[in-house]
Structures are given as structure tokens and as C-alpha cells.
């Protein structure tokens, strides 16, 4: 547990020091302020489509930090030094996932509040949106990290990361935006299930990807 915290604290500190934490937040706010310019200031249209727009923005924002999640540490030899200490790659990826979500999920949820105001969303929709993001951002963080481990050794990994991650993110978008449609609440449960699955496989698959990248 102490090990997990040591690794996660360093990752979080690095993310903060590099200023990368602001990128997804700024991106979400930019999209929310540009969207009314594109579709017009009609409050009804904005209210009906704004929630889905925020989900798309959150999904795309999760791709922004991908190229700095794993590759710089792999190049600097930090991943090798961690492995040398007998710390499993799964532990490393788990800690990184925790740190990445902490630096990605809550800031995005806070940025959603002004974004929701820009898109004229009412209180109930905003609450549903926040609940959905709380459930879905761990999955977005896990997906971003998984793709980052897979593309760590490659040049111009950013574009490839998008191509890899977006098809896998389709269920998250469907269920995430689906939570806004009301109904039985099944969408939120599916979103939670997808989130659990991605969070569970990312340490294993990401650890294997880092090991495979050594040869």
C-alpha cells in the first residue's frame, strides 16, 4: 500500500509540475464555449444536445495526456529502475492509473459545472452528468493509460493512440450519454460495468505491454 502511494504521489506530482493537468480542463471549457457558436444560442437545442457534447469533449480530452503518461518515463529509464527493485509492472500501472484518474477525473468534473452553465443545462441534468462522469472517468483514464503503455516505444504515438482508443471508447460514449436520456438507469449500470472492466484489465494488459516493450 505504501509502495502504491509512493509511486502514485510521484506521478501526480510530475503531472502537476508539467502543467498537463490543465489541458483536459481547458479543452472541455473551450468546447463548451465554442459549441453555442456553432449551433446557435437557442437554449432548447443547447439543453437537449449539450450533455452529449460534454461527453464527447470528455472522451477527446482523455486522449490529450496520453503521450506523456508512460513514454517519458520509459525513455528516462525510470520504468527500468522500478522493475529493478522487484516492483511488478502491474503495481506500477495500478499506481499510475490511480494518479492519472486523480489528476483527470475530479478536475474534469469541476470544469463540467461552468461548461453545463454555458450549455444551459438544468440542475437535474447537470447532476446526472456529474454522476455519469464520476462513473465513467475511471474508464476513460484506464483506456488512456492502456493505450499509452501500448504506444510508449513508438514515434508519433499521439495520432496512433487516438486511433486505438476511440473505437474502444464507443461503449463508454453510448452508455455515458445514455444516462442523460432518463429511463431505468440501466445505462449508468452498464457504464459502471464497462468502467470496472477497463480498470481491472488495464494493470494486467499495461504491465504486459511495458514488459514486451523492453526487448
Amino acid at each position, binding site marked *: 500500500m505504501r509502495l502504491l502511494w509512493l509511486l502514485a504521489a510521484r506521478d501526480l506530482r510530475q503531472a502537476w509540475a508539467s502543467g498537463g493537468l490543465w489541458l483536459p480542463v481547458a479543452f472541455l471549457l473551450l468546447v463548451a464555449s465554442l459549441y453555442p457558436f456553432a449551433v446557435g444560442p437557442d437554449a432548447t437545442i443547447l439543453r437537449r444536445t449539450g450533455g452529449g457534447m460534454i461527453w464527447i469533449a470528455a472522451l477527446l480530452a482523455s486522449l490529450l495526456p496520453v503521450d506523456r503518461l508512460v513514454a517519458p518515463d520509459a525513455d528516462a529509464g525510470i520504468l527500468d*529502475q522500478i522493475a529493478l527493485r522487484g516492483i511488478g509492472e502491474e503495481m506500477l500501472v495500478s499506481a499510475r492509473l490511480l494518479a492519472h484518474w486523480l489528476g483527470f477525473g475530479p478536475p474534469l468534473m469541476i470544469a463540467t459545472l461552468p461548461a453545463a452553465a454555458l450549455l444551459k443545462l438544468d440542475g437535474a441534468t447537470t447532476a446526472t452528468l456529474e454522476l455519469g462522469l464520476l462513473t465513467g472517468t475511471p474508464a476513460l483514464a484506464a483506456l488512456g493509460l492502456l493505450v499509452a503503455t501500448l504506444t510508449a516505444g513508438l514515434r508519433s504515438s499521439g495520432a496512433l493512440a487516438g486511433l486505438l482508443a476511440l473505437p474502444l471508447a464507443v461503449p463508454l460514449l453510448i452508455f455515458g450519454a445514455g444516462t442523460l436520456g432518463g429511463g431505468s438507469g440501466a445505462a449508468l449500470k452498464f457504464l459502471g460495468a464497462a468502467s470496472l472492466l477497463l480498470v481491472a484489465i488495464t494493470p494486467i494488459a499495461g504491465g504486459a505491454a511495458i514488459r514486451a516493450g*523492453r526487448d
Partner: protein
Amino acid sequence: MRPTRLRLSDVACLRGGRLLFRGVSLDLAPGGTALLTGPNGVGKSSLLRLCAGLLRPFAGTVETEGRLALADDRLALDADRPLREALGFWAALDGAAAAAVSASLDAMALAPLAQVPVRMLSTGQRKRVTLARVIASGAPIWLLDEPGNGLDAASLELLGAAIAHHLAAGGILIAASHQPLPLAAPVTLSLADYQAEAA
């Protein structure tokens, strides 16, 4: 606790479809030193990475008893943090005391640079920092890749003193180097002798 030991039996290394070397055997007990020599690209760094467990041998076995420390050409420190803090991260992972970091900075004459951000260090200073990271780890097995590169005469003396101290405390050392290192009676392994014949 089992005694520190490093044993390679009949190890072969395959990189990128090329057999770099084969039949390398080595057995080091506490206080043992090995010096890897040979021209560029013969596989010295690969052999060190095999010992570190970062590469898997194509054939043969690598057994190590005791913690490992590797100093290669990569610093593995956060570039924007002050030197002492950056080393402190590894010391915390190793469960070493803060005094171990101070002692390692002193051993490499880096104490005046303790508050300087890592990215500001020069080539020779970076090499000394890499060695300080190894010293601070307190690991009994050291794997040093070209530890003398970029060091001035005074720093080479510090390196020699650190190595002598490490070996006297029952440590094991494997170093890959082109230039002569201040080592007493190492097992010299010329990797060119183990190259596979062209098929």
C-alpha cells in the same frame, strides 16, 4: 538471509535476430568483481541488462541473490526536481534513510549541488549522480555501464573509493568499460571471445 551471489551459466543473448554472445558463464561471491570489455556493440550493456533481469537470456540461466542497482546511460531522475529530492524518491522506494542520500551525495562530491534541478547538471555531474543513485540504493549487487565515462581524474578517484568501500562491505560489482577502472583484481570477461561465429 541468503548470501549475495550472482551466477550466469552458459548465457546467450539474442537481440534483433542477432546472436550477440553465447556460452558466457560467471560466478561472483561477495567481494567479487567482473569487468566486461570488448568493442562497441559486442553486448556489454545487454549482458548487464540480462543480469538486471530486464532482458531474458536466449539460453542459459541468470541467478541473483540480493538486490540490484543499475547505472546505465540514463539518469532516471525527474529533470525538474532538485537533486536531493529526485534521489529521495528512489531512497524512499528502497526504504533507505535520508542519511543514505546525503552520504551518497558526499561520496560523489555532489553535496553543493543538492538543491540544483537535475536538468541543469553537466555530463560529468550526471554520471556522478547516476553513481550516487546506485550508492544510495544500498543494494549489494552493482551493475555499472561505463561508469568512468565523462569523469575527471578527481571523480575517478571518488568512484574508486566508492567501489572499494562497496566491495569491502561484501558487495558484488560488474562493470562494463573501455577505459581502465580503479578495480583490484577483477575477473575480466572479453565478450568478443564469446561471439557466435557467422553461420
